[in-house]
C-alpha cells in the first residue's frame, strides 16, 4: 500500500515538475496577451489605437517594477519622394532601462514591435514578441549581477516599414549610446506541427550562442536572413542585431497573421514560452559574464 502511494506521489511530482520545467512562462504570457487584446481591441493600428496601447504598455512595465517611458518621435516617410507630399510619421516607442551593476557598461537593446495591422488584434504579430521581451526584461532585472545595461523597447509602426525602430536606433546613436547588440522577437507563438522549430536571423558572431542554447533545450533552430523586422534598423547601422521568430521558411507560420483571427486563443503558448526561455538563456549568460 505504502509503495503504491509512494509511486503515485512520485508520478504526480514528476508530471507537475516536468510541466513547470517545460513552460514556466506560458500562463503569465497568456494572461498578458489576453489583457493586451482586451485593452487595445480591435487593433493597434490607428494613431488613437496605438496611443492606448502605449499607455497600456507603460502600465504593464510598471506592474513589473520597471519605469516605462513614452518616447515620441517624428520620422521621414519610407520613400524620400513622399516627403514632398506627406507629413512626417509620428509615433511612440515605449522604453524602460535596466541599469548595469557596473559603471560605463555597454547597452543591450531588447525589442519587439507592438503595433498591428488594421483590424487585427495582433496576438502573434506581435503581441507574442511583446510578451516575450517583457518576461525576459523582468527576469534580467532580477539578476544581481548585470555586466550590461539593458534597454527594453517596444517599437511603434513596424507595420508601416520599421519606422519606430529606425527612429529609435537613430536616437540612441545620436545620443552616443554604446550599443553592444540588439535582440528582437517578431511572431513567436505559432507552431501547428508541434516540432518547436524556430528561425533566427543572426550574424556569424551571434548564431553559435543561440544555436548552442537551442540545442541544449532541444529546440530545432533554422538560420535565415530577412529584412522585414525591426532588427534591420540596427543592423543598417553596423550593430549586431538578432531576430527570432516562428518557422516561416518551414511553412509553419501563423495563417492568422494580419487577420481579425490573430487572437490569444489561437497561439501556442508553450511554444512562445520556450522561445522566450531561449532568448532569456542567451542574455542571462551574457549579462552574468558567463560568455565572452
Amino acid at each position, binding site marked *: 500500500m505504502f509503495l503504491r502511494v509512494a509511486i503515485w506521489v512520485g508520478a504526480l511530482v514528476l508530471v507537475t515538475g516536468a510541466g513547470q520545467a517545460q513552460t514556466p512562462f506560458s500562463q503569465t504570457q497568456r494572461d498578458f496577451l489576453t489583457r493586451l487584446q482586451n485593452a487595445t481591441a480591435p487593433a493597434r493600428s490607428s*494613431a488613437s489605437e496605438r496611443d492606448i496601447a502605449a499607455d497600456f504598455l507603460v502600465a504593464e512595465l510598471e506592474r513589473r517594477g520597471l519605469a516605462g517611458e513614452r518616447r515620441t518621435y517624428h520620422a521621414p516617410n519610407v520613400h524620400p519622394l513622399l516627403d514632398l*507630399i506627406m507629413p512626417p510619421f509620428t509615433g511612440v516607442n515605449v522604453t524602460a532601462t535596466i541599469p548595469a551593476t557596473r559603471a560605463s557598461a555597454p547597452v543591450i537593446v531588447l525589442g519587439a514591435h507592438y503595433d498591428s495591422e*488594421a483590424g487585427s488584434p495582433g496576438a502573434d504579430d506581435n503581441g507574442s514578441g511583446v510578451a516575450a521581451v517583457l518576461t525576459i526584461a523582468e527576469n534580467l532585472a532580477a539578476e544581481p549581477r548585470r555586466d550590461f545595461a539593458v534597454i527594453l523597447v517596444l517599437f511603434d509602426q513596424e507595420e508601416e516599414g520599421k519606422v519606430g525602430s529606425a527612429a529609435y536606433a537613430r536616437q540612441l546613436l545620436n545620443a552616443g549610446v554604446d550599443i553592444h547588440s540588439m535582440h528582437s522577437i517578431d511572431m513567436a507563438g505559432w507552431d501547428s506541427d508541434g516540432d518547436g522549430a524556430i528561425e533566427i536571423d543572426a550574424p556569424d558572431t551571434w548564431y553559435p550562442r543561440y544555436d548552442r542554447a537551442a540545442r541544449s533545450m532541444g529546440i530545432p533552430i533554422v538560420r535565415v536572413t530577412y529584412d522585414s523586422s525591426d532588427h534591420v534598423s540596427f543592423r543598417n547601422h553596423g550593430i549586431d542585431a538578432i531576430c527570432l521568430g516562428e518557422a516561416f521558411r518551414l511553412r509553419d507560420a501563423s495563417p492568422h497573421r494580419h487577420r481579425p483571427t490573430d487572437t490569444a486563443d489561437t497561439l501556442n503558448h508553450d511554444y512562445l514560452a520556450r522561445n522566450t526561455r531561449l532568448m532569456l538563456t542567451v542574455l542571462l549568460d551574457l549579462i552574468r559574464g558567463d560568455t565572452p
Partner: protein
Amino acid sequence: MRLPLKIVVLALSLAAFAVRGVIYGLLGSVLPLAFILGVLGLMVAARLTGRGAGRLAVRCWGVCLVIYGLLRLGLAGLLAFAPVGSPHAIANTGWVFMLVSALYLAAGAYLVMAWRARSGPVVV
C-alpha cells in the same frame, strides 16, 4: 506698404515648401530642402538674367504647383478607392489634405495667370 497679391501668393507658396524643407531637414531627409533651394536658386538666376525670365520662372513654378496639387488630389482619391495598409497614409489624406491640395492647385493657376507678360506700349 501693401504688397500685390501675386507677390503674396508667390511668397506663401515658396514659404510652404521652405517650411517643409526645414522640418524634413531636421529629421535627416534632405530632398524637400534641396528641392526648394533648387527652385529658389533657379528663380534668382532667372530674375538676374532679365528679359522676362523671372516672370517665366514664376509661371513655371505655377505650373509645378498645379501639377503638385493634382498629384495630391490624385493620391487622396486613389487611397479613398483603393485601400492600403498604411494608417499613416489613410490618416493624412483626409479632407484637410484635399483642401490644402486644392489651395496649391488654385495658387498655381493664379500665379500662371497673374504673371503673364505685360503687353508692350502701342506705337502709333
